[in-house]
């Protein structure tokens, strides 16, 4: 096992960086996009609610790999070439954003509706009520399930391996194809995923405690 680590260290390190990079971009992207669609889903306007609902239902219910292949294979046929890393990261962002939208929506809806009524009666606009009263309370409720989404995201970034995205899983497959040492390689890959996900999981727990 140490063999694998030492002999292929530079490949593994590069894979770790690609996985980390894709995950970070997708995390920020899906948080922003997911929040926007959550706001659409609870908007006072029916048309916006419908748009939000359709987005969430579509992308939550299509496999991540299918969304990714769409960007990797279909988009290049009509628009422009997209490399594996980019198409995987876009797929990951869109797919995760649908789950985050649901998480954020549930968090907002869990805030007592009297809070919004009081804020509106107090003269605040809908947006002011959202930003100053509803959102800060929803965030607290949302952190634990959001943590789960983030951890899933890091693990799901292994979709990059299917589209030559140079991530951890991709490097692992390469190593296996030359060394045939499947057991050790996949154990090492698993451990390296833990290096990413465990700190993330502890960080989310820390946030949860701090804001509780």
């Amino acid at each position: 096992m140490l063999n694998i680590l030492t002999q292929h260290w530079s490949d593994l390190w590069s894979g770790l960086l690609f996985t980390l990079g894709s995950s970070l971009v997708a995390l920020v992207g899906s948080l922003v996009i997911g929040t926007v669609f959550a706001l659409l889903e609870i908007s006072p306007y029916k048309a916006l609610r419908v748009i939000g609902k359709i987005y969430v239902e579509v992308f939550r219910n299509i496999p991540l790999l299918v969304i990714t292949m769409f960007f990797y294979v279909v988009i290049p046929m009509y628009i422009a070439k997209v490399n594996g890393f980019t198409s995987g990261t876009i797929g990951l962002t869109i797919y995760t954003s649908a789950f985050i939208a649901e998480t954020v929506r549930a968090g907002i809806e869990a805030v007592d509706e009297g809070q919004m009524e009081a804020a509106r009666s107090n003269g605040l606009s809908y947006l002011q009520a959202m930003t100053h009263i509803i959102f800060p309370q929803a965030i607290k409720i949302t952190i634990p399930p959001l943590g789960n989404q983030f951890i899933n995201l890091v693990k799901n970034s292994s979709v990059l391996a299917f589209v030559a995205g140079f991530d951890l899983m991709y490097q692992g497959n390469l190593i296996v194809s030359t060394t045939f040492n499947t057991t050790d390689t996949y154990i090492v890959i698993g451990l390296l995923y833990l290096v990413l996900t465990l700190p993330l999981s502890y960080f989310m727990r820390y946030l949860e405690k701090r804001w509780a």
Partner: protein
Amino acid sequence: MSMIEFHDVEKYYGDFHALKNINLTIDKGEVVVIIGPSGSGKSTVLRSINGLNTISSGQLIVNNRDLADKKTDMNKIRRDVGMVFQHFNLYANKTVLENITLGPQLVLKQSKAQSQKEAMALLEQVGLADKAQSYPRMLSGGQKQRVAIARSLAMKPQALLFDEPTSALDPEMIGDVLDVMKKVAEDGMTMVVVTHEMGFAREVANRLIFMADGEVLEDSDTKSFFEHPKEERARQFLSKIINH
């Protein structure tokens, strides 16, 4: 000068007819108490006045503005008409002081210093200056409601609506809240109060309105309402809540 006018107002929740042909005028400076059995439409009347509900038909005029008119700025109406809720609805993520200063800062564009100064004066007035830095969860129900009243007053409203402000309180807390409301009334505030506190009504209200099944069955000045209610149902209701 009228502050609030209902003309032939109807309200439906889906198929349910919640307000039936409501005609009411409430003048500036008047204190009006609304009573009636559960489900009679009292909250719906209050919530219509500041636009938390929209009416289905008829005309509702608040502070000389027709609420159905597209040009009416509902945020402006709500700034002028405060509301106090049964369950207080203090902002859970804000301190007592911030609960009071948020509206003045965001909506009235008061400076932080000015809004805090006025908030402290209001807290003094409701007897809670020492709680300025507390969070709502640390307060008793009666304290919460007094903060909620201070929060409404900080917007310098033209009228205040109270929806059963003491119904969620322990008996020993009710007096403090009613005292604050009495003071607000003495300062000339226009008030519409849904309550079953008949002592308060007798002492402070100019008029009583009795609602049942979405209708206003009786609308009389306080003295005649208590001495000889015209409606049999009003009389029965009154004797029920007074003997409680």
